[in-house]
């Protein structure tokens, strides 16, 4: 077998193993979607009435792309927590003692989490449709919107993979990553327009990649008012390109770092 064929085959074996867990422990999907569903209800029906949206757009349409982004960003912690769990249980030791590709455990992990994200975004879209969110563009554009979310989610998975391998305790992975994940999902255009943010936060929000993911998704799903003024800043005016730059940078940094950490990681 060539090195590449071996890496692909090993990654598929690990992906399959991770998906079996999703099948056996359906709680995983329930909890990955339960909190975003609660956010939908909370913002749509409680806070939403007090949040003015520019151009007379319905709040549900404004909100849901934000929720999608929040869901995949929060969901990326699953990658880190699962790797930390494998480390704790000695499975990483077992894998490292096998003649398998050094990247396979991480590729298999992130690919399985990508597929899990397809499922959770699906659940969130259905939830959205039920509370009044609509897709106002073509099917092609909507698919691109989903791909944008998934691509960003995949890059975030690799960031969390490194965190998981360094931190080694699933609970700590969750707590530690929220220190970063919380501000990047909330100091953004996710739930409210950023125009009235204090200046420092506004600049942060304008260059925050999560804002760009949300803006890009809003445009691709048609959740913007035609003819409304362009958002400020280059990032939000070119959200898709800006997101892809972040994705490329994340992958270029975190794939090699994570693989290197995996190779030298010793369980327990």
């Amino acid at each position, binding site marked *: 077998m060539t090195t590449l064929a071996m890496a692909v085959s090993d990654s598929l*074996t690990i992906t399959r*193993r991770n998906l*079996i867990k999703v099948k056996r422990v359906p709680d995983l999907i329930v909890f990955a979607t339960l909190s975003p569903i609660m956010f939908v209800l909370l913002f749509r029906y409680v806070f939403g009435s007090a949040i003015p949206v520019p151009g007379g757009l319905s709040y549900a349409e404004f909100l849901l792309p934000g929720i999608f982004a929040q869901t995949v960003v929060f969901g990326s912690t699953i990658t880190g927590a699962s790797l930390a769990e494998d480390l704790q249980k000695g499975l990483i030791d077992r894998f490292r003692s*096998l003649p*398998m590709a050094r990247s396979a455990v991480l590729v298999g992990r992130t690919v399985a989490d990508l597929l899990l994200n397809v499922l959770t975004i699906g659940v969130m879209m259905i939830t959205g449709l039920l509370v009044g969110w609509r897709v106002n563009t073509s099917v092609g554009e909507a698919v691109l919107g989903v791909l944008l979310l998934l691509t960003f989610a995949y890059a975030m998975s690799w960031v969390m993979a490194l965190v998981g391998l360094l931190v080694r305790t699933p609970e700590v992975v969750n707590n530690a990553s929220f220190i970063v994940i919380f501000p990047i999902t909330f100091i953004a255009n996710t739930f409210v327009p950023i125009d009235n943010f204090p200046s420092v936060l506004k600049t942060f929000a304008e260059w925050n990649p999560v804002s760009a993911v949300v803006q890009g998704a809003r445009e691709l799903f048609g959740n913007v008012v035609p003819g409304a003024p362009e958002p400020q800043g280059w990032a939000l005016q070119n959200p898709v390109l800006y997101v892809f730059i972040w994705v490329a940078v994340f992958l270029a940094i975190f794939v090699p770092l994570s693989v290197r950490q995996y190779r030298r990681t010793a369980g327990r």
Partner: protein
Amino acid sequence: MTDAIVVEGLVKRYGATTALDGVDLTVAEGSVLGLLGPNGAGKTTVVRILTTLLLADEGRAEVVGLDVVRDADDVRASIGLTGQYAAVDEYLTGFENLEMVGRLYHLPRGEARARAGELLERFDLTDAAGRPAKTYSGGMRRRLDIAASLINRPRVLFLDEPTTGLDPRSRLAMWEFIAELADGGTTILLTTQYLEEADRLADRMVVIDRGRVIARGTGDELKAQVGGQRLEFTLARAVDLVEAGERLRPLAVDQPRSDEQSRRLSLPVRGGTEVLAEALRRLEGSGVEVLDVGLRRPDLDDVFLTLTGHAAEDVPAADETATDPVPAAGGSR
């Protein structure tokens, strides 16, 4: 005979602590080496370096003639490892676990499955094959773990404390499996803190303590290092210990030991049962009441005590993890 494992001058440091301080050992092809030592002696560190999981700071190691650093991938293809903690995926069934490991050894799917079925049968797990490993008892998990390390028919098998935490019945079963593997010609390096286990399974032993080899040889050779046999008396009254000691002193080849608490007197002696008869004759009419007497060959506990000054089983309670809750060998669905 060629050596399947060669270790020379292995040193491993963690910050200021030295885990391994120049370990040398060899294991002949097809033999079983017992790596013996208390907790924290460095046994697991040796295994981790030999199985390519850890890099040594100094020294070198070869497994089946391959350098564990330079030829790490080829080493991995020739070995099996069962770590201290049963590393099985709890969400996968027994069969899925073995199939996965087989695929990761790059066996074709059909062969991986056939091999999984074969090993489940051999380790009495056929009835539980379709259940997630989460539902397995400690003994069953350990068996599944060993089965996983055998998928690729390794030439060298590393067993790191294979019976720690198992109940006596599972431990006996595990010993039988290991003995069978050894009979089949697999080279085995087994770490243990149970002296009885090494004595029973290993052809040769290496005793390490605080990262250094302190003794090596066969079980008999190690026992010989401690000296010959001992004559042991248990008396009815502790006050008689002095009198008995004086009367028996001429028979002893070294200083007798007595213990008031257990009312025991122990004499290193030479010779066989005639010494025993002579000793009893000397105590006749002395008023010393003997409850029990025996001629004892030293066991490995004596070896350890002599070599290290502390007992082998002198381990922290934290190690007593994972007992076997249900010894359900029959399995049920």
